[in-house]
């Protein structure tokens, strides 16, 4: 071992060993209250770290990733440039014909899940009564498989295809797009068509946490607890997450040094699902951000985003509806969802570096129309709005910080908060939540999520990636337990091997 790597590793190992041991001790203490078991699936989120690019260009993971899969500013610029370094050697004709830009990623792990008030059968009831029980389960498990293929088809024509499975092996296409890069010779115009992750400055597909509780950003997927209540069968499921990959067309631009970025997208209002299962309308997503240097501290970035969407509240046509329920959404003809009502997700983001410490802070402001928020078709023939219904409005905050003492180790901390500022249903204190009628408090459905974790990469190379992963996450929701309407807590602990080749 050379002088350089031995001193680097020794110093890093000393620092890391203490941190890892401390984290393991703290997390082990949390293991003690296992009482009962129930299977809780790991979500099949697709995450990105692509040794295929490292192999193509011969650069270590740490060039493009602060800690994979999280991008460094250099990696972000590489992505924004259509997976090109811009050295006149990006086109496939300059590669070995045998080069095949494929990477798989998978995680094997042990995890422990706890839900403090899960809905279970009452063993003393003979009439199917239900109660709440503290549920804990743990064991060895594995994630879904991500099969990344991406790169360039020619200079300034790039692509990305990501077949992704859940952990049973059921595949879907998480990402499918082609992109025209540097159109008309300028980095300010790039056109992407297909299914892709929105240009979120804090990428959920590059999230560093893996647990059930914190494998996605809560603020990216939050919907008020009054939604999708199942009361009106003519109302189609309303599901939207700004973290979900969407189908559409994106125009994106950036300065040569990637300090200034913008994007504008037009998207089908189907939350990234194929075959237009609900409506034929379009949403818009817009981002802008600017980075600047502050002395030796590093690169700082501030930005804003806005998603303006709409979703149908009933189907214009159904087919084969033999349920006896007029307009039953279960028989809705794909693409004929109408009665569209609006929603939006807007926010501000700041990403700040203080040398090896970095902090991302986000503020969210969101709203769903009262018809969406109460599950009511915008058609009197199918139902009427609950008395006193109004638009649901909420705010959110996210603080994620990392300490990265070396490319081989990262400590992660995240706090997410969601606060309702206007409930869709009238507030009747002292009464439990009654779907379609009332909620018990303004804070009903509020959520806090705390996450701590660390990843250690025993080697860094341009061929493959491997990480020891440890994480604990805890979420606390106000008044949403399924039977008694008390606060609902989830916790998740995970240790595993995360690898990609």
């Amino acid at each position, binding site marked *: 071992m*050379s*002088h*350089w*790597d031995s001193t*680097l590793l020794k110093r890093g190992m000393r620092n890391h060993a203490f941190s890892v041991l401390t984290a393991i001790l703290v997390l082990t203490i949390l293991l003690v209250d296992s009482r009962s078991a129930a299977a809780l699936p790991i979500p099949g989120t697709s995450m990105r770290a692509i040794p295929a690019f490292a*192999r*193509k*260009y*011969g*650069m*270590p993971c*740490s*060039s493009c990733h602060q800690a994979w899969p999280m991008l460094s*500013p*250099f990696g*972000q*610029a*590489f992505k924004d440039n259509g997976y090109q*370094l*811009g*050295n*006149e*050697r990006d*086109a496939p*004709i*300059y*590669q*070995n014909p045998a*080069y095949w830009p494929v990477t798989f990623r998978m995680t094997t792990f042990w995890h422990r899940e706890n839900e403090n008030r899960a809905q279970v059968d009452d063993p003393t009831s003979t009439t199917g009564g239900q109660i709440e029980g503290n549920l804990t389960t743990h064991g060895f498990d594995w994630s879904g498989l991500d099969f990344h293929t991406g790169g360039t088809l*020619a*200079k300034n024509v790039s692509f990305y295809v990501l077949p992704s499975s859940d952990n049973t092996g059921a595949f879907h296409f998480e990402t499918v797009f082609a992109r025209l890069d540097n159109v008309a010779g300028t980095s300010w115009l790039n056109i992407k068509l297909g299914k892709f992750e929105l240009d979120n400055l804090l990428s959920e597909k590059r999230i560093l946490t893996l647990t059930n509780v914190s494998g996605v950003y809560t603020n990216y997927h939050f919907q008020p607890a009054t939604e999708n209540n199942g009361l009106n069968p003519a109302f189609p499921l309303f599901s939207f997450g700004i973290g979900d990959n969407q189908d559409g067309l994106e125009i994106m631009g950036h300065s*040569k*040094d*990637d300090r200034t970025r913008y994007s504008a997208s037009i998207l089908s209002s189907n939350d990234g699902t194929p075959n237009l299962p609900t409506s034929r309308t379009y949403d818009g997503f817009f981002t802008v951000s600017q980075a600047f*240097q502050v*002395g*030796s501290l*590093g*690169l700082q970035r501030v930005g804003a985003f806005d998603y303006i969407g709409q979703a149908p509240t009933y189907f214009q046509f159904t087919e084969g509806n033999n349920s006896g329920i007029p307009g039953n959404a279960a028989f809705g003809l794909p693409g004929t969802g109408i009665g569209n009502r609006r929603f939006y997700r807007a926010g501000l983001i700041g990403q700040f570096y203080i040398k090896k410490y970095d902090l991302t802070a986000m503020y969210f402001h969101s709203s769903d129309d009262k018809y969406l928020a109460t599950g009511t078709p915008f058609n009197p023939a199918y139902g009427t709005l609950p008395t006193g219904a109004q638009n649901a409005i909420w705010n959110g905050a996210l603080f994620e910080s990392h300490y990265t003492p*070396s*490319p081989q180790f990262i400590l992660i901390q995240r706090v997410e908060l969601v606060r309702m500022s206007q409930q869709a249903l009238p507030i009747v204190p002292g009464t439990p939540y009654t779907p379609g009628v009332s909620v018990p408090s303004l804070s009903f459905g509020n959520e806090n999520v705390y996450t701590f974790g660390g990843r250690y990469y025993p080697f860094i*190379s*341009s061929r493959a990636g491997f990480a020891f992963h440890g994480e604990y996450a805890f979420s606390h929701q106000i008044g949403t337990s399924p039977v008694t309407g008390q606060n609902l807590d989830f916790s998740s602990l995970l240790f595993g091997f995360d690898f990609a080749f």
Partner: protein
Amino acid sequence: MRKMNLAKCLTGIAVLLVAPLVLTAQQGESHIGKLTGNAGTGKQLYFRYCWGCHGFRGDGNGENWLPTGNYPNGPNLNIQPRNFVAATFKCRSTPTGTLPTDEDVYNSLGRGLTNSNMPSWITLTNQNRADLVAFIKTLSERWKTEKAGAEINVPAEPAPTVQSIQHGKELFTKLECWKCHGPEGRGDGPSASTLTDSNDQPIRPYNFAGGSRFKCGTTNHDLYKIFMTGLDGTPMPSFADVIKPEDAWDLVHYLRTLQVSRKSPELALWEGTKEGAEIVKAQKVRGTPTGSGVNQ
């Protein structure tokens, strides 16, 4: 008298004690404008971004450089990463054989080296690049024993004219640039296939017809510096002792006309002449370097 001697002795001891510290501190620094790079920080950055190609010791033997000279991804990337231990740098503003200035190395980091695997690191902060320069300077003994060369003087560029282009064309022949770069500047001269760099690896002459930026910059000023300083470590010599500055500018103007796929005032002037129009037309008919019709 004795007090004077004592004072001199103490001063001497102090100088002896402090001087190495000062020298060491200077070796661990780079200076680019108002920026002062720190080698300690640069070392951390190096082991994040650079070691994969340039190696743990900075000798260009990273994990992606195979001793056989077979770059894993194909022959077109068959360029060994810079050997910082040898401290031989292509892109300099200093005479051939001398060390570059801190700013030269800093600019190379920001610009990248086209037609190689060295990308532009402009996304790093200016301070980060200065830190990397400081660390790179610790990798070779040369920086401890030699100073950077004095920057060459680049006189003001005269306006291009048809005459200057014609004269540049004559110089291109007279100085035998065509032997490597080819009569049309396509990098296909009779000597092209025999060229090797200082690592005994095959190296291709620059192909002007491709229209890409130059190895060490994009401007006429950069092009002037390239053939007045040479690209050390490659067969491209310095012509500083061979041609006068005004001749060098004429050569610059002619070389621009060889970049037929890139608009420039020189190309416009050249195409305005009968001779130039015919040559450029013929060049364009020959197509792009890949022959695919698409400039890859």
